[in-house]
């Protein structure tokens, strides 16, 4: 199966280092403290943040920092075939992974005795769902005004037909090649998430990792633009601009 044709074009016409189209929107769930819609190609994710608010379960309370809870759920219609169990292992694992990534970048020490809920709802899944979720969560947290060290951004990259490929979609992901998901804090230049499946030789891994980090930096730029645009809108509405 040829995933990269001789001209260097992938199945959907992209080049090896080209990301899918990104659409980012803030404030989609009016009731939540902060919310965002993030799309990477056909992968669509909504993130809603409720918090900081009073802790619901006193036994889980932390005295010196905020408690961060995360729940990842996929809609029944999100994948091609309509199967979706609510608490399956993949959802639990992703909830944990995303929670740990976001917890590392939220300044939890500023909000002791409180709880921050991050809810992620996948509307369409076409590969790269965990990256889209992390990016959406970052936007939603910024919309909620929760203090963060940096914007956590994530992107995936793979290796097929001897070419490193940026931002895999579902077809490329299920091809059996390696899939490296990287989450970084761009300004601090720190890695908060690194996951890989299948196997890669060491030099190839470094190339793929570098490609994914480049993708992350591009996403960070985009997220910053969206947040700036949103702030300008708010200023305009307040009559300050």
């Amino acid at each position, binding site marked *: 199966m040829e995933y990269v044709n001789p001209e260097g*074009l992938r*199945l*959907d*016409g*992209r080049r090896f280092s*080209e990301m*899918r*189209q990104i*659409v980012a929107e803030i404030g*989609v*769930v*009016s*009731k*939540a403290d902060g*919310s965002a819609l993030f799309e990477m*190609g*056909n992968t669509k994710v*909504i*993130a*809603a943040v*409720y918090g900081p608010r009073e802790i619901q379960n006193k036994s889980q309370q932390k005295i010196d920092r905020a408690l961060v*809870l995360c*729940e990842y*759920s996929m*809609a*029944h*219609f999100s994948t*091609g075939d*309509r199967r979706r169990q*609510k*608490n399956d292992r993949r959802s639990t694992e992703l909830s944990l992974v995303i929670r740990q990534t976001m917890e590392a970048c939220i300044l939890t020490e500023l909000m002791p005795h409180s709880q921050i*809920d991050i*809810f*992620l*709802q996948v*509307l*369409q899944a076409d590969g790269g769902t965990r990256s889209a979720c992390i990016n959406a969560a970052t936007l939603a947290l910024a919309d909620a005004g929760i203090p963060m060290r940096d914007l956590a951004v994530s992107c995936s990259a793979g290796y097929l037909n001897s070419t490193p490929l940026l931002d895999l979609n579902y*077809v490329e992901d299920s091809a059996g090649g390696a899939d490296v998901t990287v989450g970084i804090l761009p300004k601090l230049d720190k890695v908060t998430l690194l996951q890989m499946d299948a196997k890669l030789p060491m030099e190839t891994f470094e190339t793929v990792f570098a490609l994914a980090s480049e993708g992350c930096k591009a996403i960070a730029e985009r997220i910053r633009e969206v947040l700036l645009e949103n702030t300008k809108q708010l200023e305009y509405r307040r009559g300050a601009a």
Partner: protein
Amino acid sequence: MVGLSVGEQHFLKGGIAQDLRADGRKRLTYRPIYVETGVIPQANGSARVKIGGTDVIASVKAEIGRPSSLQPDKGKVAVFIDCSPTAEPTFGGRGGEELSSELALALQKCLLGGKSGAGAGIDLSSLLIKEGRVCWDLYIDGLVISSDGNLLDALSAAIKAALTNTAIPKVQVSAEMADDEQPEIDISDEEYQQFDTSSVPVIITLTKVGAHYIVDATAEEESQMSSAVSISVNRVGHICGLTKRGGSGLDPSVILDMISVAKHLSESLMNKLDSEISAAEACEDEDLLKCKRAGTLLTRLISFLYSIVSGSLFKVKKHNKLHEDCDILGGEMRIEVMRSAKI
């Protein structure tokens, strides 16, 4: 949701008694309704409905199945609702299950009629392919993204829009097989049959607060309700289903009055919905045309190659194939399509 203070409760109830609700509406006025169709490209039909702060998505997926032995001449329809925790933190984990099953049951009853299949809003025999052997199974999935009251009305409107948007591929049954063998079926990629949704009912929920009832209650108003009656009415004016919620008892004459109010409102709601749905469908078709016109030979070649590859891997709905092809161009094209599709 944060509770309301005594002062706020008085304000809400007093306003409703004076026919001036908290957001300025009259008792029997709906909030603005926005409909967007074709939001889930991989489903056979989908729609997103926003009524004020309530935001729901409905999708319809058709799969080949076997008719039940009790009704071998009909297809099957199942309704599932999922309340996303993004709407309400309490829906996280298993918290939303009770509400989800309550909503799903109410919608199933109003759409599919009784156990014998009589009085169904959807013509189930149109889903049949071969009697007793092959039929279409329709899975209607609803997702509540944001909840600000009146979920049942929004979901029924979304399901009606999604069914209008649904295109089921035409099927040819090839070769006559022996009774116990599965017949070979050929699913067409080109021809689709649209659904006839003129008899699909809509649900109108009337919420009783104090001595008056209001339509399209917000979450705050619902918290003050004594009881609510959800009535499903079809185009002809017939009642297709009735549910009463809430602990307080209602005088039978009040219920009859509510039913007549609902019937009266259903006409305007149906007309509004139909016009919104056709506007949304026209919007979607326009976007596809825009893509077609601006496409170059290279794009057509790339999309041709893509369709060959993807056609063999998973079903590509023809209706939205061009929409997907637009992604190949990336850049302005996709943004243009997105902007014009947003309502």
